[in-house]
């Protein structure tokens, strides 16, 4: 018959036994009574010799009763469980961590609270010693607690705040089945009964507390900034998931000062875009959407950070008569966040491809042919009509097709490149090798080519300039969706300019501060809580970005319904909560007791009976 202690720490109470014995031994002395004829009293008198003084433990009824009481209390605290009498049921609870669980019903109760009520109700019907393991669904499955008692689980549940966008719940189910290992019960608490096509585990009971509710929310929010006009534009998309037309109020605030307020009506199950001009230099705006009968709060608020202007300076050193100069100037001038500079502090150098640039890790370079001005070489140059082989994965060639482009003046390469565009065995565009400079070269004579007249030309240049912009230090985006990874360049080059200061990089939110690893390119994993985050390098603010909840599927509460599915099979088996140390504690306590008694009886001083 299996036997174990549910609370082995209770066995520490056995230490009270020697304590009681010691108290009796040293503090429970009887008043002396001088007698003679001890043999008539039936007592074996003892006369201690000189030296160690130790008295026999008076075995009295009081002592025995106290020891017995302490033993019983200790065993009661340890909660011994024999066989199936005190069976412990292990209940593994999978909690739907989707944000819709925060929706508030007309009765004023959230789905989250309703689910917890169901759990408590379910536990009332279980054995008193049921233990729980709590885990949440989501992109990262989290174990909130377990195995723990209901009282301990209650503390963990108080911290549970569902806020995930729509996600796959099956990994959490699989993990729960693994945890149960055929011995525990499974319970899935959600607001949306999963389709049977998702094949929930047979042994899992499902309780849905959802109900159809009206909801409005943002599905998109963007801040576009025109550096030329120094004017911003908020682009918002609103959705009404309810069954009735509703009037929405959109309010924008900056540092608690109302910046704008709009009212609009939105018909049932529809979306509508809205654009709101906003002056430059505002920095941060908080936009709140309100509507009567709205059930979900999380999709009603967005915070946007004003984008920063990251102008790419293009150093154009092509000769005045170079056929590529004018086409380059035309494209760069057309771009809002790029400008041509003649200084040395350019971010991208565009020059003749005939000469390979000096090696510098911070330099970006584009060389435009012809590779040689020598007439003989130009005579030998090829004019190609395609087909062209393009390295499609390269972001610089994204959208470039070269359809109908005549690639003229392709000469032999004077240096090594990695081909990006080829025609047969002839590389037409390549990336430089053997240099720290991020360099690209076009093996072309634009005077013999129609590339600059094709749509591919601005696309190619814009891609290059955007890549260069992305490589600049600092955030390239300032507004993210929930569960979107954040990546930015902290510095250019191989050496961290602030490394000597060893300033720690931290990510500060409204609730906590997390350290971030310093590197050339910093990666911050997806944030799970909407809000504004500040990146700090030491005490200096490196940048700010906002994370907002946008999830039309999760915001749509019209498909939620209550329901219950009982487990197809119910594997109620013993779950041994036995601590592997419980027997050691018991054994240790017994040994201590035994040692005291042995020490008492074996090492006691010599006695003689009177």
């Amino acid at each position, binding site marked *: 018959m299996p036997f174990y202690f549910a609370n082995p720490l209770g066995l520490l109470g056995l230490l009270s036994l020697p304590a009681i014995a010691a108290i009796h031994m040293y503090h429970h*002395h*009887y*008043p*002396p*009574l*001088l*007698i*003679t*004829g*001890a*043999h*008539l*009293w*039936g*007592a*074996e*008198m*003892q*006369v201690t010799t000189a030296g160690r003084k130790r008295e*026999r433990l*008076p075995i*009295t*009824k009081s002592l025995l009763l106290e020891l017995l009481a302490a033993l019983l209390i200790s065993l009661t605290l340890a909660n011994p469980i024999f066989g199936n009498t005190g069976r412990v049921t292990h209940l593994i609870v999978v909690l739907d961590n989707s944000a819709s669980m925060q929706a508030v019903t007309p009765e004023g109760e959230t789905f989250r609270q309703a689910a917890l009520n169901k759990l408590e109700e379910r536990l009332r019907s279980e054995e008193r010693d049921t233990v729980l393991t709590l885990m949440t669904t989501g992109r990262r499955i989290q174990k909130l607690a377990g195995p723990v008692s209901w009282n301990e689980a209650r503390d963990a549940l108080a911290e549970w705040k569902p806020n995930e966008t729509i996600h796959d719940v099956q990994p959490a189910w699989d993990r729960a089945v693994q945890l149960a290992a055929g011995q525990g019960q499974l319970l899935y608490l959600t607001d949306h009964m999963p389709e049977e096509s998702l094949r929930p585990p047979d042994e899992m009971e499902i309780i849905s507390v959802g109900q159809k509710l009206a909801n409005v929310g943002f599905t998109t929010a963007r801040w576009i900034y025109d550096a030329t006009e120094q004017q911003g534009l908020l682009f918002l998309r609103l959705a009404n998931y309810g069954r009735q037309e509703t009037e929405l109020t959109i309010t924008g605030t900056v540092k608690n000062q109302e910046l704008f307020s709009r009212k609009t009506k939105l018909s049932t199950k529809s979306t509508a875009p809205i654009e709101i001009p906003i002056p430059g230099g505002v920095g941060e705006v908080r936009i709140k959407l309100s509507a009567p009968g709205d059930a979900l709060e999380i999709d009603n608020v967005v915070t946007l950070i004003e984008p920063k202007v990251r102008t790419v300076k293009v150093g154009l050193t092509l000769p005045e008569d170079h056929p590529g100069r004018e086409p380059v100037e035309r494209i760069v001038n057309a771009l809002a966040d790029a400008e041509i500079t003649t200084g040395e502090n350019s971010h991208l150098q565009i020059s003749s491809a005939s000469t390979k640039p000096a090696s510098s890790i911070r330099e970006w370079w584009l060389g435009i042919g012809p590779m040689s001005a020598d007439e003989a070489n130009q005579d030998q140059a090829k004019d190609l009509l395609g087909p062209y082989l393009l390295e499609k994965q390269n972001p610089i060639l994204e959208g470039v097709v070269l359809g109908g482009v005549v690639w003229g003046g392709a000469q032999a390469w004077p240096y090594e490149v990695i081909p990006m565009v080829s025609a047969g065995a002839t590389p037409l565009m390549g990336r430089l090798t053997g240099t720290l400079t991020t360099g690209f070269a076009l093996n072309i004579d634009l005077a013999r080519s129609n590339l600059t007249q094709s749509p591919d030309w601005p696309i190619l240049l814009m891609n290059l300039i955007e890549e260069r912009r992305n490589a600049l230090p600092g955030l390239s985006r300032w507004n993210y969706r929930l569960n979107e990874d954040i990546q930015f360049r902290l510095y250019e080059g191989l050496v961290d300019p602030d490394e000597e200061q060893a300033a720690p990089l931290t990510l500060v939110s409204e609730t906590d501060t997390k350290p971030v690893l310093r590197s050339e390119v910093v990666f911050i994993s997806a944030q799970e809580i909407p809000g504004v985050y500040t990146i700090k390098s030491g005490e200096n603010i490196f940048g700010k970005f906002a994370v907002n909840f946008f999830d039309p599927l999760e915001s749509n509460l019209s498909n939620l319904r209550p329901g219950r599915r009982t487990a197809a099979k119910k594997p109620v088996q013993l779950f041994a909560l036995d601590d592997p140390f419980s027997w050691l504690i018991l054994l240790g306590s017994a040994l201590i007791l035994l040692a005291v008694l042995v020490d008492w009886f074996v090492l006691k001083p010599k006695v*003689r*009976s*009177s």
Partner: protein
Amino acid sequence: MRHDPEVQNAISRYQMGLLRVPTAGQSGELLGRGTGSSLEFQEYREYMPGDDIRHLDWSAYARSDQLMIRLFREEISPRTEIVIDASRSMGLGGDHKSLVMKQLAAMFALMSGQLGGRPALFIADDRRPVEHLTIESLNRLDDLELTGSGDLGELLVDGAIPFKRQSVRIVISDFLFPHDPDTLIRKLAAESAALWVIQLLNDFEQDPTPLGGRRLVDVETGGETDMIINQDRIQQYKERLQRLQTSLARASRRVHAPFVTLVAERGLTELCHTDLCQAGILRAE
């Protein structure tokens, strides 16, 4: 102690009950067990050569023509040896036990002196040789301290008490030390003319009452033990004490010795009037 009012009262009202017991000794007021020269006629027997012809009954010779010798009981003055147990146990229970023991010893010594005897009072304690008092040094009893830790059995085995043959021995003790009553009494009675065995206890020793938890300390050995003194324990104690007293009484009867148990708290006057007279140790004058 010689001038103790109760002792003086006792010796004026009682005398030793020795007449009922055949004894031997020097000429005196008491009669011995054998024939002697007293005036109390005992019996006739035929004359044998060597008999004192002053005791021939000439009248009987005239009537029966046989020489008959008139035998008379021997008249003696006994040697009395009083042994008192001077161990620490005799001082237990307040002053009653030690006081009564001293009073008894003085009383018997003075009574014996009145009869012309030469009483000897042996103080049985740890001292060797055993101190012995005469009637002249009886006042020593007043200052006697009960400090002995041995028992009578050890004294007899050691031969520490110089008993005289044909003496009257009075032994006063609580007899609560572990011993074999038969052996002890036989040794006390050996070569004695008479033996009186007086067990002197205090009230608690004779009739203990429940006291609850107590650490029992043997006053002579220093041994200790913890015990709950309740009715069960007391009942067991009384049964063992009763067996001891029965054994002492039976052993005493075997040597024609009276045995009496006295409870000190009752006082000497009461003890003399009741227990000692009933045991035949004293008789009223």
